[in-house]
């Protein structure tokens, strides 16, 4: 892959990297005939971002190297910190860089990023990458009942009321208002934290589609990068969401690029106030990490075109998820008692038909290819829980989904 980004666009590219760095520690660089996608996901798999640049964005763009014409292009997984350090100071990039060339494949294990700067200076950086399966969240935004659209500035004004350290906020939509409040988990801290709430009238939005009362809680920190990107380009932001537990999608687009951030939302965030006792001593609701990630096939759009698959994705809250080791390390709220096998109900719904079981396996293949299928799939921790079956959470599952 070889592409050249010209002067002004280098700053936009850098800003995209800044936004992605808020999400995860690794950057997936995914070139294809349609354009270059930069993606990242956080370790808990509860936040995903994708910045997609069409060939028009580049001064020059060629996705695959000549010798590999017939094969799939390679997806490179890079360490975010390394890439971010190259684009860290956007002001100086704007001043000095005339163009930036990114090439993958020569030699095979390196991504070469070259900055051609003023005064004839060329800076060349070689970053080693790991070849990887492409990362792509499967999210059917057209199925979301609630939609908001507004200039980035409006969202910026909304979130500025919350301190930068605020982790999570709750967005509520009703026919007469849209409101944001900060979300705090119970405990002693709530005596000292400010509770902030702000609400707007639907008229303030460019587009307001009310599909049902909804209060979703998601991580604000991960979103700020996209909002700042959108504000710097004066782009409107689209928000798609549904009921609590389902992911929320923020997207911006213009003629040459599209950016999407998909965040998991807490399940039943409203119904579970600090006064309601839960089953377990740890009061925090389980975070629902329901960003189903599919392995990308040659045509990346296909996964969204199959209606049956997207229906499955949108409704199945019981999707067992990914690398159990990663999950167990990086989710501090969840202790062993919460880690369950998939309850029988979910297995049943996931595997009723041969077609759906095949789809399940397609969804999971990206991950399970790296593990042994020796039954440890049966003990994948379920992080996506469903709020109405809390009492059953303690049950062991005897049946495992067939993968």
């Amino acid at each position, binding site marked *: 892959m070889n592409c050249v980004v010209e002067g002004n666009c280098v700053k936009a590219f850098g800003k995209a990297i800044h936004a992605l760095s808020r999400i995860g520690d690794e950057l997936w660089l995914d070139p294809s005939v349609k354009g270059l996608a930069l993606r990242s996901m956080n370790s808990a798999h509860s936040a995903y971002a994708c910045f997609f640049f069409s060939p028009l964005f580049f001064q020059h763009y060629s996705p695959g190297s000549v010798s590999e014409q017939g094969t799939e292009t390679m997806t490179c997984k890079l360490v975010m910190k390394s890439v971010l350090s190259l684009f860290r100071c956007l002001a100086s990039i704007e001043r000095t860089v005339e163009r930036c060339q990114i090439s993958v494949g020569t030699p095979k294990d390196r991504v070469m990023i070259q900055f051609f700067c003023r005064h004839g200076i060329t800076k060349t950086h070689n970053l080693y990458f790991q070849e990887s399966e492409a990362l792509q969240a499967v999210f059917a935004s057209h199925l979301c009942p609630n939609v908001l659209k507004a200039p980035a500035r409006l969202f910026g004004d909304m979130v500025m*009321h919350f301190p930068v350290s605020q982790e999570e906020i709750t967005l509520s939509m009703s026919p007469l208002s849209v409101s944001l409040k900060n979300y705090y988990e119970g405990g002693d801290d*709530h005596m*000292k934290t400010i*509770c*902030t709430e*702000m609400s707007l*009238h639907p008229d303030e939005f460019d587009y307001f589609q009310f599909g049902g009362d909804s209060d979703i809680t998601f991580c604000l920190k991960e979103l700020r990068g996209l909002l700042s990107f959108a504000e710097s380009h004066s782009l409107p932001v689209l928000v798609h969401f549904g009921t609590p537990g389902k992911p929320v999608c923020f997207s911006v687009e213009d003629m040459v690029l599209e950016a999407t951030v998909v965040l998991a939302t807490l399940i039943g965030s409203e119904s579970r106030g600090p006064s309601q006792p839960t089953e377990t001593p740890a009061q925090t609701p389980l975070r629902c990490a329901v960003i189903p990630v599919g392995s990308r096939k040659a045509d990346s759009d296909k996964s969204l075109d199959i209606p049956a698959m997207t229906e499955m994705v949108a409704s199945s809250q019981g999707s067992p998820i990914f690398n159990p080791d990663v999950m167990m390390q990086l989710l501090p709220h969840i202790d062993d008692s919460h880690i369950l096998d998939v309850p029988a109900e979910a297995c049943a719904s996931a595997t009723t038909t041969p077609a759906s079981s095949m789809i399940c396996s397609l969804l999971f293949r990206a991950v399970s290819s790296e593990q042994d299928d020796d039954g440890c799939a049966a003990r994948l921790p379920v992080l996506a829980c469903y709020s109405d079956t809390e009492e059953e959470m303690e049950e062991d599952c005897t049946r495992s989904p067939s993968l």
Partner: protein
Amino acid sequence: MKFRGKIVDIACLNHFTRVITTISKLTKMCVLRLTPDNLYFVLSGKVANGGVSMWCELSQANFFDEYQMEGVSSEANEICLEVTPENLSRALKTVQSAKAVKIKLTKKHCPCLTIAAELPTMSSINRVVTHDVPVDVIPRRLWHEFKEPSMPDFDVSIYLPPLKTLKNIVDRMKNLSNFLVVEANLNGEMNLKIETDLVSVTTHFKDLGNPPWGDDASQDGGPSQSRDPDDMAQARVDIRKLQQFLMGQQVNPSKSMCNIVHQRILHLILLHEDVSLQYFIPAVA
């Protein structure tokens, strides 16, 4: 107990926010006393603060358009709350463009000062923002700890040089020593001195002027009046405390002065039109 205030004027809101921001830089927590005429931010000198105490007085009429309060009882028509000024400051900063800001004492999950504002927007309906800042109500039996400090029987009182100049000097001296001696006399001369094994540095100020306290200040009329004008009164203080005081100041006061009780206390007074701030730093040996 009830409290409800409303600020409509943008300049008042701005000024109020700046005062609270200054207080937030001086201390993490302090007591807010509300009376029918004034608001006081009080920090009582305790060992935990290093003996530093603060008294900041605001006249409510200069800030609030509407102000209603009902204290604990009719004889004790006051409310005493423990607050974290930084929370108040943060909440107020986000509503600087508001048409009106209401501050009320409410009870949510705990007693709170609720700051509610209406922000102007393009459409006809305003945006509403509320911040609930948790506070602690201070029981009446502890109120005696937060009384107005009496003016100490000082030896010398002198106007301060511009705070910015002082801050620059103190910042640099801090790199050399932990303790600073402030001394002044009735001739308008002031020195800032540090002394270590390796180095001693003194900054001299002249022609500062001495406030005409006259007879009110020194009750017994004796020592102050017959004091030799060249005689320096000094106080050796922890330099970080002085630096913290100077760092927080955001607005140039109309009058700034300090009173020194020889080897006991450094008493700093800043007067703006509608706010007065007093800060006491105890002297160390």
